[in-house]
């Protein structure tokens, strides 16, 4: 008898892979970026489906397929999760200390730089009437 298609494994794997790529989308919104709960949730759902699929592949191998490819897919999903965790919980936290950055109460260093229209803008030009928020960003290259 032909054994049944083990959809839990396939869907679980797709959800886990989707979880990895979902951060590209979720990173746009502070609420899903500051702590990546939406991405972790997708990984979690993928893991539950994969484990359920594996459970029945090994538990009732005469009915369900997936012992071999289920194990491979689960291992790949685990690697993706490990990669995501490494990037979000380690790489993204490798920020310089900036111990010499101007502190509250200190004078902000003066500057004069070209803006997006090629016009020179100095800090002094920005301070009137009530000051300026200066945002340093990594850039878009």
């Amino acid at each position: 008898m032909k054994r049944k298609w083990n959809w839990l494994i396939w869907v679980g794997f797709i959800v886990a892979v989707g979880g990895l790529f979902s951060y590209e989308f979720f990173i746009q919104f502070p609420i899903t970026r500051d702590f990546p709960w939406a991405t972790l949730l997708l990984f979690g759902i993928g893991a539950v489906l994969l484990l359920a699929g594996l459970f029945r592949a090994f538990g009732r191998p005469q009915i369900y397929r997936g012992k071999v490819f289920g194990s491979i897919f689960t291992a790949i999903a685990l690697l993706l999760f490990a990669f995501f965790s490494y990037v979000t919980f380690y790489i993204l936290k490798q920020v310089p200390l900036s111990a010499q950055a101007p502190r509250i109460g200190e004078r902000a260093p003066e500057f004069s730089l070209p803006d997006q229209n090629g016009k020179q803008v100095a800090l002094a030009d920005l301070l009137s009437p009530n000051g300026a928020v200066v945002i340093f960003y990594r850039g878009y290259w």
Partner: protein
Amino acid sequence: MRGFQKRLADFDKRGVHLAAISVDPSDVTAAHCRKMNYTFPFLSDADAAVIKRYDVLHRGAGPRGNDIARPAEFYIDSSGTVRWVNLTENIAVRARPEQALAAIDEARGSGDSH
């Protein structure tokens, strides 16, 4: 950055300017601002001189191992004094405009005569 653009009117209302600084050359910045409809000044610090002066350089963190700015936000009052600093511990977590607005209101509410 989109958050700050969206709340630009709230900064205008308080008489506070916004400025963004990175090592991106002006043409990259210009294209990006057009695409994203950013209207406040995006300043190009190509040799990272200002970024170094503020000690917010992230060595080798650029795409070709070049030096770039780490995310950091400052509120500087009209006298040129720093009144609020945000130095994130996670590159993906930047200050939200609400934090900056709250810092401005607090700084201006407490004995600032302007």
